[in-house]
């Protein structure tokens, strides 16, 4: 275990079942899945579908009544659960911080239990606070009740990661905070995961959260049956059945736009001039450009004004009065949804794309956006159909019993 990070471990669930005594049907019925090392997998499903139960069986807070759990290839189904849990980070809704301990004491709990030396624990607490974006000097000695909900949740994540576990289980961790804070925390988690590459299993009932965070999403129906386990793109564009599409909800294509960045689509080049270019040159460019319009950049090459043919005439040759100011720009990291929003609100239906320091890089307009989205959706669909086909032929080889129903369904769709 290195001081900073140990990367994720695989998790394999094999026929995992939970049957409560006295109830005729199992709460979780025969769940099998493989989660790759360093992957973020989201369990999403309606309340009471057993997603939380399934999660809690991975660290055996709930003992499975059947099936095996393997973490990093090691069978942990029968090992001492207390030892197992110290190797698995666990973060829950409403943070689960112990109110009688300070922030530092909370974070230090697992390292202390695993017997780290005091000096290393101290350094680790500072490091973790830093990692989740809280100033160690300020928050070290505070009690949980002196923190806001979002801050508590950050400390909760810091505590879960303190002993550097390869696996992190999160049970609706952002369920109890307001939407704006939740958005921030989700962004933070994405950033963290970029640095740490843990294997994260995350339970939520919010499909949008699942799309935002997940490398893969497992849509679960009652008794934790996996309705679909695939990438967000595939689930959005090719839901396996009515249950999944019902859960995805309306506007799947719009949600898909959240998953693609402006950098991934074609950016058109636009004729541009700079404010300090001579007027004659600006006139010439305007006349020669096929677009009827050019983009005026300021001294630092940032988009400044849209100039149309005739604008300069009307303003009697004064650049200061001519044209319309650029109201909105998007960066290459913006999602297509943001870009669409900007394009829709612009009266000419286009938006300038800027680089890191706001400098001009290109333009996205309605047409390119529409073409890109169509291409994306089509590509997603093909990929999903192909994946499903692979899956089904694999299944066909495995069992003859299952082959009938599933095979027919798959072919009908293909």
């Amino acid at each position, binding site marked *: 275990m290195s001081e900073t990070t140990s990367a994720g471990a695989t998790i394999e669930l094999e026929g995992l079942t939970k049957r409560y005594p006295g109830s005729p049907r199992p709460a979780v019925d025969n769940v099998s899945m493989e989660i790759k090392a360093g992957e973020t997998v989201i369990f999403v499903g309606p309340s009471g579908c057993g997603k939380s139960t399934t999660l809690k069986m991975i660290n055996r*807070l709930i003992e499975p009544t059947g099936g095996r759990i393997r973490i990093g290839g090691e069978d942990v189904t029968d090992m001492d659960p207390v030892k197992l849990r110290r190797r698995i980070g666990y973060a829950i809704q409403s943070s*689960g911080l112990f*109110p*009688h*301990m300070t922030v530092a004491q909370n974070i230090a709990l697992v390292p202390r*239990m695993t017997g780290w030396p005091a000096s290393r624990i101290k350094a680790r607490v500072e490091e973790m606070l830093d990692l989740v974006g809280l100033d160690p000097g300020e928050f070290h000695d505070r009690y*949980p*009740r002196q923190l806001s909900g979002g801050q508590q949740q950050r400390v909760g994540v810091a505590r879960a990661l303190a002993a550097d576990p390869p696996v992190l289980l999160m049970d609706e961790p952002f369920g109890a905070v307001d939407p704006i804070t939740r958005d921030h925390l989700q962004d933070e988690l994405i950033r963290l995961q970029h640095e740490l590459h843990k294997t994260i299993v995350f339970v939520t009932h919010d499909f949008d959260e699942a799309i935002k965070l997940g490398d893969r999403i497992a849509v679960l129906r009652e008794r934790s049956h996996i309705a679909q386990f695939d990438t967000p793109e595939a689930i959005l564009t090719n839901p396996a059945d009515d249950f999944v599409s019902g859960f995805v909800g309306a506007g799947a294509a719009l949600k898909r736009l959240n998953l693609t960045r402006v950098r991934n689509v074609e950016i058109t080049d636009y004729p541009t001039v700079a404010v300090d270019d001579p007027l004659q040159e600006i006139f010439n460019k305007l006349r020669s450009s096929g677009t009827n319009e050019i983009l005026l950049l300021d001294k630092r090459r940032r988009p400044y004004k849209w100039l149309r043919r005739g604008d300069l005439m009307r303003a009697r040759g004064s650049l200061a009065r001519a044209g319309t100011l650029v109201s909105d720009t998007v960066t290459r990291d913006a999602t297509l949804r943001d870009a669409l929003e900007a394009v829709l609100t612009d009266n000419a239906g286009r938006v300038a794309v800027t680089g890191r320091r706001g400098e001009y890089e290109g333009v996205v307009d309605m047409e390119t956006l529409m073409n890109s989205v169509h291409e994306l959706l089509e590509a997603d669909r093909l990929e999903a159909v192909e994946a499903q086909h692979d899956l089904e032929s694999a299944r066909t080889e495995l069992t003859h019993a299952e082959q009938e129903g599933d095979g027919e369904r798959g072919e009908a769709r293909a």
Partner: protein
Amino acid sequence: MSFWEYLGNRHQQLLTDAFQHASAVFQCMVVATVVGVALGVVTYRSEWAGNLATTATSTILTIPSLAMIGLLIPVVGLGVPPTVIALTLYGLLPIVRNAIVGLRGVDPSLVDAARGIGMSRVAQLARVELPLAWPPILTGIRVSTQMLMGIAAIAAYASGPGLGNEIFRGIASLGSKNALNQVLAGTLGIIVLALLFDAAYVLVGRLTIPRGIRV
């Protein structure tokens, strides 16, 4: 003889009685706390066991203290033993009940978190559940102590120690010139002791309840 002259004359005897009174109550409280919290810890997780413990201890409390001591004398004899047994039994109820209520009142998500991060059962109790249940348990201890202060006076009936002796002597010699002084001195002494103990508990609370959950 005025009350003040009486106090002046008898202060040696009164201080000894007061000390013995306080000492008996204190020692019985220690035993009652240990037994009461242990009973709470053992029973709080099960509905029926917790209820049984609460019902049993409250039944004990309904027995009149004089009758209880009277019943104990033939079994354990006179003096200190019946006093200690009676006081400890009476002290149990508020502690057991508050321990059960306090432990059951710990937010289940915190217990879940404690298990989830890999605490053993003992660590969960010692580091999370008992510290969080401590404020109500301490309240139970306070109530018990107040109650035992009064009940301890009855112990004099079985030749036990304490300020009860003053009161019983006064009652026995009603009409004599010091009778009223004796009853008054014993009663006031108990009240003063009770107030002193209560002040001590406030201090104990300040020192032992973690700052994060202090109200």
